[in-house]
């Protein structure tokens, strides 16, 4: 046996002997308000077939109480921010004196938008996130100031847009004009950044289900964003989470809204194709 296999073999034995350090994903079903059925585990999309069989929502890796909070809108602290988003939706702003509702109708009309973002937007000639679309409308159609990419107003609006799509399957396109951005995102996903030299895949593909210190590693899916985190008692934008994870590898992060994070969001989003939109979700 060479050093490598010897290390691996002892590693395997030790892992099996370990107790508590490996915790299974929950065997549980999520139905929100007793009516919205959420797919929290399903067959992996074709582009991941060499890597994994099943994709799972981060919901399955959280404790029982945290999971229960998401099953009822009265218990989900994220829903307060959806209400604030709804208020903003109906408020006229900017030089044009228009609200989102003036052009788009009721917020529920936006059902089906969240699941396909990020996507290549023909008119813009680039891949865009939901945040970029919202700011484009504010700046160019309302004559209003752009919102901070991961700021409170933006996160509330994205929470509203997610909530009206809850239960619909994530369906991010990876081919055609989106493909080159997707490839770029994939490369970032597998790059071992920072002084700890860790890639997203090291933690969320190779080790989901395992404990890293006190944290139960999930697949790092983004179908639940924005997430209300019990740790910081607020709604968190997806790219704030990316930033935190990159920072934790002792790396220089990318900025929310940067081309790198947009590409990464497209790629990570596509790894969740088939899971239900769940945002705003509850996490710890």
């Amino acid at each position: 046996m060479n050093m490598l296999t010897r290390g691996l073999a002892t590693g395997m034995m030790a892992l099996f002997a370990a107790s508590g350090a490996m915790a299974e994903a929950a065997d549980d079903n999520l139905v929100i308000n007793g009516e919205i059925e959420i797919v929290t585990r399903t067959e992996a999309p074709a582009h991941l077939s060499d890597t994994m069989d099943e994709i799972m929502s981060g919901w399955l890796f959280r404790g029982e109480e945290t999971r229960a909070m998401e099953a009822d809108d009265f218990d989900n602290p994220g829903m307060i921010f959806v209400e604030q988003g709804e208020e903003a939706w109906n408020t006229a702003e900017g030089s044009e004196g228009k609200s989102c509702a003036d052009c788009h109708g009721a917020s529920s009309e936006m059902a089906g938008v969240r699941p396909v973002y990020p996507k290549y937007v023909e008119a813009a000639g680039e891949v865009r996130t939901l945040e970029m679309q919202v700011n484009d409308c504010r700046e160019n159609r309302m004559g209003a100031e752009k919102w901070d990419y991961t700021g409170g107003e933006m996160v509330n609006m994205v929470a509203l847009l997610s909530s009206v799509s809850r239960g619909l399957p994530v369906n991010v396109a990876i081919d055609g004009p989106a493909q080159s951005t997707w490839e770029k995102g994939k490369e970032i996903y597998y790059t071992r950044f920072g002084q700890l030299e860790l890639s997203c895949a090291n933690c969320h593909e190779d080790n989901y289900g395992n404990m890293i210190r006190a944290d139960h590693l999930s697949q790092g899916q983004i179908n639940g964003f924005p997430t209300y985190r019990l740790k910081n008692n607020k709604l968190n934008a997806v790219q704030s989470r990316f930033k935190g994870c990159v920072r934790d590898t002792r790396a220089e992060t990318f900025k929310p809204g940067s081309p790198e994070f947009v590409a990464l969001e497209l790629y990570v989003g596509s790894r969740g194709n088939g899971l239900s939109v769940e945002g705003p979700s509850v996490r710890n």
Partner: protein
Amino acid sequence: MKISVMALVASVGMAASAVAAEIAPTAVTYTDGAVEQSLTGVAGNPEEGAKIIGSKKLGNCVACHQVTALADVPWQGGIGPVLDGAGDRWSEAELRGIVANAKMMFEGTMMPAFYKDTGFIRPGKAFTGEAADDTLGPLLSAQQVEDVVAYLATLKD
């Protein structure tokens, strides 16, 4: 936090000035993943080593490994093998190589290199998310590596 960072800087500084013969991260010689020569020439202190392994601010080895002998350290992870018996499985030179740069022993391993200060992609300034500056040093000082190795060598079945 500030205090422990300063303590860390101080201890790195002391180790460097006390021992002229310290081997720099880029000068370490690996043979089949093992490092024969002590990085400092000063015997490691296993008690210090145990602290480094359990401390979030230092080695934080228990983020990924369990060590039964350190059961009082809470939240031990399950990414890497349990380290019980590591002193039986590996020689001191092999342990030194694994701690200094485990990628020399286990190709492509997830385990970070603790005695390496170059060759990173977008290295940061600790956990700030900002770019590293020229104060970037290895995760552990040469003497801290020796301390950790001395502790691992005591882990016999």
